[in-house]
């Protein structure tokens, strides 16, 4: 049965929820708000399962469900339609968005229970899910841009959800503005694509990319890089990563949904979606890989130094997305998408669990003031542990291992891979394991520092458990080539994403897995050693001036904030301030001032003295006669 005519329901349900909540949410009871808010997403998830199931079951090769709703606008040869299209890549994203979205919404019904603006929260969340779905379901780049900006708006609204605190508002503004820089570049990218391809429909571009562009030509590289810039902004990659840590000002479910699981991976989606363009430019792919590698290392080191649990998770998100970009850069498209999915599970889980902890500890974000929660909050502990082992990629038993191991392997062995990228990724793995262990130990072991309020209820723990199960077991759908060669996920994606091209003559995969496992275990040991066994060693490290300085540097996120503040924000504000009264107006006030001065000068001659006037007459006559003589 062809289910494509129900495709529109997937985004329409959240949109409907948004409209109901936005228009009459103020007057609805909390139960109804929760029902509409979470229900719309759950229904949407259900529709996704049905449509997706139909799509998969009746799937011949290369099937795409498309549904054109209406023509958005059409000018000359440019035409943009509101067309949804579902293929395997978008199906993965839609599944993650609706499924994790539904879980997070259920969690939020309890988490936000006490909040004044319950309806506004769910309205924004629903709008976000709608926009995100439009982003991934869009069949042309312009519609994707609509979703792209829509999620930015919702991110803005939700980061600044508790708007009465000015810092939240500033964080929201920063998030929007920084991503907007990427978006502006992406818009130019769209113009370039249109100019060269004459269309913005993704499938047309994909089909004709090799005809339109010369491989490795400057235009294709520039186009790819401009599109990439949009992705970098949304996905918080170097050099536009500074907004994400501040975005943690939003409620924890928001961090889980928007700033971990879905929106920040929009960049990954974009690059994967436009892989045909990226495939044509080696330079662009190299840039993607280098940015990914640099970001994962930088963000990982920063995560090591943070004390706010949500900021640790935020930097770890940046770092993990760095892995995805690395995978995209080396041409391991499916590996990137796989890691996206697994990451969505465990990072959403971690954020939700962290949210539960923070909530129970009266909004305490500082990990050093937590501790000893292992026994007091068992459900949260075990689920958090599940997420943490996945993040740290503990070998064999965690989903994160399978996805990250793939990336590590491809970063050397794939066509665009190199030992340097691999080394960086391996170092990243070690760091990841270290900061994860640090976070676990500080939060759950040791002495309790803060009194625990109420424990999370069923509506919060059930989503945690579900996500924990996925974080552990979802990895088994894609096993490495050397054991099992069970590649369900990448086979599934191959209608859209090409197979990863491999280099020849590469060392055995076993060796890599061993090294990756060693890195992880080493990282865990480091964390264990310094934070559990020998906490005193930390204090002694503090004596070292160089290390302290390095610590501060890392803590500040490699001073990017300060740098941008100096280089961009302050000059801009300075220029704006000094020119507040508009310098060009001086031109006109100058003219009028001069007129005034001349008036004063001339009115001085109007002295009322008759003799003076006659003198004027005489001088005038002299001048006139003089002119006549001259001529």
């Amino acid at each position, binding site marked *: 049965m062809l289910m494509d005519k129900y495709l529109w329901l997937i985004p329409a349900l959240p949109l409907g929820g948004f409209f109901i909540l936005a228009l009459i949410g103020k007057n609805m009871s909390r139960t109804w708000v929760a029902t509409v808010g979470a229900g719309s997403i759950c229904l949407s998830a259900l529709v996704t399962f049905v449509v997706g199931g139909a799509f998969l079951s009746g799937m011949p090769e290369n099937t795409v469900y498309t549904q054109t709703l209406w023509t958005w606008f059409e000018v000359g040869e440019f035409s943009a339609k509101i067309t949804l299209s579902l293929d395997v890549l978008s199906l993965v994203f839609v599944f993650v968005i609706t499924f994790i979205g539904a879980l997070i919404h259920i969690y939020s019904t309890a988490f936000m229970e006490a909040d004044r603006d319950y309806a506004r929260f769910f309205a924004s969340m629903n709008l976000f899910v709608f926009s995100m779905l439009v982003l991934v379901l869009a069949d042309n780049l312009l519609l994707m841009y609509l979703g792209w900006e829509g999620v930015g708006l919702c991110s803005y609204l939700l980061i600044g959800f508790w708007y009465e605190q000015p810092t939240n508002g500033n964080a929201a503004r920063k998030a929007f503005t920084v991503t907007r820089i990427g978006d502006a570049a992406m818009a130019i990218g769209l113009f370039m694509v249109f100019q060269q391809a004459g269309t913005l429909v993704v499938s047309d571009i994909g089909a004709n990319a090799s005809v339109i562009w010369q491989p490795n030509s400057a235009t294709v590289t520039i186009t790819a890089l401009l599109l990439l810039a949009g992705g970098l902004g949304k996905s918080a990659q170097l050099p536009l990563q500074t907004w994400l840590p501040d975005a943690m000002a939003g409620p924890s479910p928001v961090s889980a949904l928007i700033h971990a699981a879905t929106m920040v991976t929009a960049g990954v989606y974009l690059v994967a979606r436009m892989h045909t363009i990226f495939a044509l430019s080696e330079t662009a792919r190299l840039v993607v890989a280098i940015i990914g590698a640099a970001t994962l290392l930088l963000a990982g080191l920063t995560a090591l130094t943070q004390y706010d649990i949500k900021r640790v998770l935020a930097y770890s998100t940046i770092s993990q997305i760095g892995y995805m970009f690395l995978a995209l850069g080396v041409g391991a498209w499916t590996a990137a998408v796989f890691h996206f999915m697994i990451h969505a599970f465990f990072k959403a889980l971690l954020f939700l669990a962290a949210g539960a902890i923070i909530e129970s500890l009266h909004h305490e974000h500082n990990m050093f003031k937590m501790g000893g929660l292992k026994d007091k909050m068992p459900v949260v502990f075990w689920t958090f542990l599940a997420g943490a082992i996945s993040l740290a990629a503990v070998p064999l038993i965690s989903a994160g291992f399978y996805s990250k191991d793939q990336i590590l392997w491809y970063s050397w062995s794939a066509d665009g891979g190199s030992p340097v990228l691999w080394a960086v990724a391996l170092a990243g793995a070690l760091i990841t394991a270290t900061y994860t262990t640090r976070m676990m130990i500080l939060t759950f072991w040791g002495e309790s520092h803060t009194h625990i309020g109420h424990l999370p209820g069923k509506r919060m723990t059930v989503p945690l458990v579900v996500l924990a199960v996925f974080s552990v077991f979802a990895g088994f759908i894609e096993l490495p080539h050397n054991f099992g060669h069970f590649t369900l996920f990448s086979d599934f994606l191959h209608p859209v994403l090409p197979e990863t091209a491999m280099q020849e003559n590469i060392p055995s995969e076993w060796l890599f897995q061993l090294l990756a496992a060693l890195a992880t275990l080493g990282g865990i040991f480091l964390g264990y050693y310094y934070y559990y066994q020998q906490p005193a060693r930390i204090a002694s490290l503090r004596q070292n001036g160089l290390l302290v300085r390095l610590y501060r540097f890392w803590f500040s996120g490699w001073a990017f904030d300060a740098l941008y503040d100096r280089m961009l924000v302050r000059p801009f504000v300075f220029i704006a301030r000094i020119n507040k009264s508009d310098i060009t107006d001086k031109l006109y006030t100058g003219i009028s001032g001069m007129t005034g001065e001349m008036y004063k000068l001339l009115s001085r001659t109007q002295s009322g003295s008759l003799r003076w006037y006659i*003198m004027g007459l*005489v001088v005038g*006559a*002299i001048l006139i*006669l003089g002119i*006549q*003589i001259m001529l």
Partner: protein
Amino acid sequence: MEIAFYIAGAVAIVATLMVITRHNPVHALLYLNVSLLAHAMLFYLLGASFAALLEIIIYAGAIMVLFIFVVMLLNLGKETAEQERKWLKLKVWAGPTMLAAILFAEFLALVLSSRQSTYSPAVVSPREVAVSLFREYLIGVELAAMLLMAAVVGAAHIGRHKKLVLHRFLKEEKEREEEKQEEMVL
């Protein structure tokens, strides 16, 4: 007969100089009369006998009498002469005289730059003047009549003795000043 012309011209210049330099108004008036008579002579020499007559009768006769009446009426006697003496300092008249000299020099240059030519002035009889006046310039004559009429009425109106009348703005200003002074006094 050129000599008569030059003499008359010289008399006119000297008399005019005296007019503008005398301190006593009556003296100045008398010199002006002399100057006017010299003008009349010049007119006659230029063949304009009608103009010469008018100059003597109206200017030297009527207008000057008006002046003298006024001078008498205002009793401009010795004090005025004293005042004039004080006012007429070198630094007062040097500048304007320079200016006038420059003006005259320019005029001179302009006039002399054109071709020199001597001519014998044609006699224009009063008859011709009258014909022209009442034929081509009839409108002018009418207008002149109206002007004189207006002047008579105006002079009669202005010359009446009135109380001090100020424009309303000046009046308000004056009142304000007075108030201010009162305040200061208080």
